[in-house]
């Protein structure tokens, strides 16, 4: 096993532990306070921020795994968040590889935009399209607040994932 492969494996293991920790934080009842009834969604921005430091193909699977954890912990459609995050992580990885410099500002923008997209697609496919009532109220009262609460943690998640990506690297 080469040094690069070993470092990659350790880094992915660190990401796996990070995902399990974030899943525990966001889904354990009464562990993390809810703001106006909305809970933060740590896994989505974490996966997207990791994709800024990883190549495209590993980013797809990182997004897929984070999405599967999100799907499983909720009552929605299995595979929905996995699909959304896999695609998002791929495009973020492509952007950062070709066009964007990875720094705090770009991480903040990409993190916030990706959280908004995940929340928006969640609202469209799991609330609006099934035909539930008061979609505007649901979006403003639950989904937007969840987005806002999650966006606050994007800088922290960026610093954590930057630490992992830079430290555990050949």
């Amino acid at each position, binding site marked *: 096993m080469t040094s690069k492969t070993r470092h990659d494996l350790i880094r992915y293991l660190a990401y796996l532990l990070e995902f*399990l920790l974030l899943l*525990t934080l966001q889904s354990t*009842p009464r562990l993390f306070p809810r703001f106006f009834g909305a809970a933060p969604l740590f896994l989505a921005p974490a996966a997207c921020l990791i994709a800024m430091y990883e190549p495209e193909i590993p980013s797809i699977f990182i997004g897929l795994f984070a999405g*599967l954890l999100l799907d499983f912990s909720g*009552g*929605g459609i*299995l595979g929905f968040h996995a699909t959304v995050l896999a695609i998002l992580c791929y495009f973020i990885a492509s952007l950062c590889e070709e066009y964007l410099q990875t720094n705090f500002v770009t991480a903040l923008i990409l993190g916030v935009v990706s959280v908004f997209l995940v*929340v928006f697609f969640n609202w469209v496919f*799991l609330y609006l399209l099934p035909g539930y009532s008061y979609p505007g109220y649901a979006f403003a009262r639950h989904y937007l607040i969840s987005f806002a609460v999650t966006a606050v943690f994007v800088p922290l998640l960026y610093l954590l994932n930057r630490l992992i990506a830079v430290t555990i690297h050949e």
Partner: protein
Amino acid sequence: MKKFFHTKSFRVLIGVVVVLLGVLIYTQSVDSSVTANIISFLSSPIQKASSSATNSVRETLFPEDEKTLADRVAELEEENREYRRQLIEFEETKKLVEQYRQMLGIREEHSDFSMVPAAIISTDSMNPFFVFTIDKGDRDGVSEGDPVVSKDGLVGWISNVYKTTSVVTTIFSEDAHIGATVVTKRETGVIESNIKLADQGYVRLSFLDTNTQISANDLVTTTGLSGNYPKDIMVGRVISVESSENGISKHAVVKPYAKIRDLEDVFVITDFEGKGEVDASELYPPESSSQTESSSSENSSDVSSLQSESSEGVRPGETGSSSGEGDSGEPNENPEE
């Protein structure tokens, strides 16, 4: 741009998306999922441990004040650690005993119930209707559509089952359509909800007659007519009676007895007397028309014939939809039965 679509990574993405869409369609059409069961098996122990630890810490006493002398302080610290450890063990045992006592209490009231106690290990961050996951699944005898109760009353139903965990949809969900009755007034309706009511912690008893006698503080229980829920499970207390949006019926705003947002433990009713059997006799009492009399005397479970013959403003039968699709599926179509 053209080169972008010919890259290896883009092809991998397309492949992954196709597989995920296949998984998505497959899990929507059948009940089980190998992927979900694997993830459930891996993550549920961590979620269980985290939930248990959080509850223990919240119930633990704060450490006592320490004395100033160093030796006495060290001795007391050690003693304190030992007492705290014993207290945590005691609280766990006490909780278990209380859980079994509640289960016994419900069993004594409803001796025909088969129940599985379960702990809530995670909640869905994105779902506005407070969907949660419990630590019991298919291998514990839980199946899709099983009612979920707490010691106070009805909580919801099992909407997804995996090997070691299950997802519970609460009565706050817009998918809830549960037959209920106010026994003292002999009136029936359907328990429903929407996001605005759910935010306030209420549900509603819909399809009441415009001349309804139901009033505030009346007790609402399940009818058990459809076979999805046992009879006489406490649902809640009427807060107010209001005219419905359609203008031809009324609904009652009901406050559930179960403190759904503060629950730690629930019970899944895996079997009860009358499960899966549609009982139309209460909807069509003997003094109704001859056509409905023959239906009730035959004890018909043909829901479509009930729907065509119904002449009352009450939706015949109950439904407990198990998916997030917003449909109200018929209980007898549950493939687990």
